[in-house]
């Protein structure tokens, strides 16, 4: 038994995981991990590449840690689209595909089960006898990139946490760096983890009320969906001690709206990338977008306004992409533009890729979105750039109107409001009214371009 499993065992009959089947305690979790591990022992060797096709549930968590114990290279695939599954299996050159149906495990050899992957990073893990994890980028641009993590390092990074009586909502799971980080941290603290089945504002609010959730990790897009559905007025969310937000820029005024809707809840910005893992952060205050990365395992630099990171938990490399975003000495260029305050706090301004160039002047969507969110007539918005023959690019906005708003008058009101708050080139020229802004299945806005 590894230290990790012994640690989980020590929480004994404390509740560990709640899913649609019910509540499982830590003892049951460890037993299930052991049971899967024995089952896998006959067929799966250390260093083999094993894909897990499953939803988010107790058995999937147990299987994940059984494979960790087996020192396999785990490829979690949550997608149900066959073409996407096939593409990912091919990228990782999987040895096995494991499918979970309840607690029943189906194992199918994928490649020729005899031959091991010849991928150098996977070979390295096998030689070091360490488990691996392959995560895929969300693929907002181009092919999803397969990133190889040393899973032992990720697990080690959460060890030594003080036990805490916390009810955590786990929104994303081990197919996503943020979800994995929440899962690992929660287990390391002996917390009670509530897995989300239906990922909509209503369902999440019900879970928060029913399970007296203390910590909700979510994206700004999802948090705004909660505000739009007014769930904070309809459900009892007083148990919420902390909301953590990350994965995309938080518009300043949306943060203020959240602060108003959840006055007793601390709001904390999280920061991380699939490439480097999640860093420990502290926000200056709940109403502030300024944060510090105070993590001994993470070094930071700001180069030409861009945040660079180097961490103990960064990826070994990509399976299907060059290391373009890493410097030769191992710094990861995050693509995030930041402002640094005199006392060392960072404020994320937006993604370099999302910068809009209006006749030579630079605009970042989050700043404009923040000004738009100040208007009560606007329930949601997304700002992006589009080509324009006169100025090269122009600022465009998709707007979801609040129920009582009339689009005809809003266009003018919105411009007037922006004129008072923004330089002229930042004011949205094209304004489009939509029923819903576009976001991916991880509730991260997909900006048009």
């Amino acid at each position, binding site marked *: 038994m590894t230290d990790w499993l012994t640690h989980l065992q020590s929480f004994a009959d404390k509740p560990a995981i709640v899913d649609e089947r019910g509540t499982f305690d830590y003892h049951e979790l460890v037993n299930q991990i052991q049971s899967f591990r024995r089952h896998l022992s006959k067929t799966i060797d250390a260093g083999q590449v094993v894909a897990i096709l499953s939803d988010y549930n107790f058995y999937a968590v147990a299987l994940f840690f059984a494979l960790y114990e087996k020192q396999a290279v785990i490829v979690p695939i949550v997608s149900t689209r066959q073409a996407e599954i096939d593409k990912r299996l091919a990228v990782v050159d999987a040895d096995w595909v494991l499918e979970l149906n309840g607690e029943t495990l189906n194992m199918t050899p994928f490649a020729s089960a005899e031959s091991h992957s010849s991928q150098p990073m996977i070979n390295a893990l096998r030689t070091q006898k360490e488990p691996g994890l392959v995560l895929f980028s969300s693929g907002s641009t181009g092919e999803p990139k397969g990133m190889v993590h040393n899973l032992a390092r990720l697990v080690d990074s959460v060890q030594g946490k003080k036990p805490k009586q916390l009810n955590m909502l786990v929104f994303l799971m081990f197919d996503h760096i943020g979800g994995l980080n929440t899962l690992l941290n929660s287990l390391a603290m002996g917390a009670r983890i509530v897995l989300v089945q239906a990922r909509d504002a209503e369902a999440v609010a019900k879970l928060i009320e029913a399970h007296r959730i203390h910590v909700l990790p979510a994206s700004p897009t999802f948090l705004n969906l909660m505000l739009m559905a007014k769930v904070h007025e309809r459900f009892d969310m007083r148990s919420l001690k902390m909301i953590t937000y990350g994965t995309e820029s938080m518009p300043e005024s949306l943060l203020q709206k959240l602060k108003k809707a959840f006055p007793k809840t601390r709001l904390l910005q999280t920061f991380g990338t699939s490439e480097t893992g999640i860093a420990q952060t502290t926000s200056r205050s709940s109403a502030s977008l300024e944060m510090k990365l105070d993590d001994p395992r993470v070094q930071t630099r700001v180069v030409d306004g861009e945040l660079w990171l180097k961490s103990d938990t960064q990826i070994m490399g990509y399976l299907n992409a060059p290391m373009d975003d890493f410097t030769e000495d191992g710094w990861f260029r995050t693509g995030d533009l930041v402002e640094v305050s005199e006392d060392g706090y960072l404020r994320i301004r937006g993604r370099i890729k999302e910068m809009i160039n209006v006749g030579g002047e630079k605009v970042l969507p989050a700043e404009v979105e923040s000004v738009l969110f100040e208007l009560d007539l606007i329930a949601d918005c997304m700002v992006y750039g589009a080509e324009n*023959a*006169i*100025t090269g690019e122009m600022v465009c906005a998709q707007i979801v109107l609040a129920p009582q708003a009339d689009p005809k008058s809003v266009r003018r009101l919105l*411009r007037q409001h922006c*004129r008072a708050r923004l330089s002229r*080139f930042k004011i949205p020229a*094209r304004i489009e009214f939509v029923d819903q802004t576009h976001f991916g299945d991880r509730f991260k806005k997909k900006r048009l371009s």
Partner: protein
Amino acid sequence: MNKVSDLVLEVVRELGSDQENKALVNADLETPLFGRNLDSMGIVFLVTDLEARISEEWDLAITLADERAMSQNTSPFRSVKTLTQYTQTLLDEAKTSA
């Protein structure tokens, strides 16, 4: 002139009142636009507003500011009149192809 010029004038006047430009508030067909009363950003706002209004009124999607507009011998953005004429041309094309 016709409905197109009315719409162009309405959008020009509205922009004039937003930008507190008297010449645009009192615009007629001869009112000069680009270079005199509007800079490039002003033209961008005028054109996107006009496109939006055309889409609302007639359910037609046209692009007034593109390479073609920029390469016309007479700039469509020179005056209310040239903008009206260019808009009319694009609308006629959009209707025939629709």
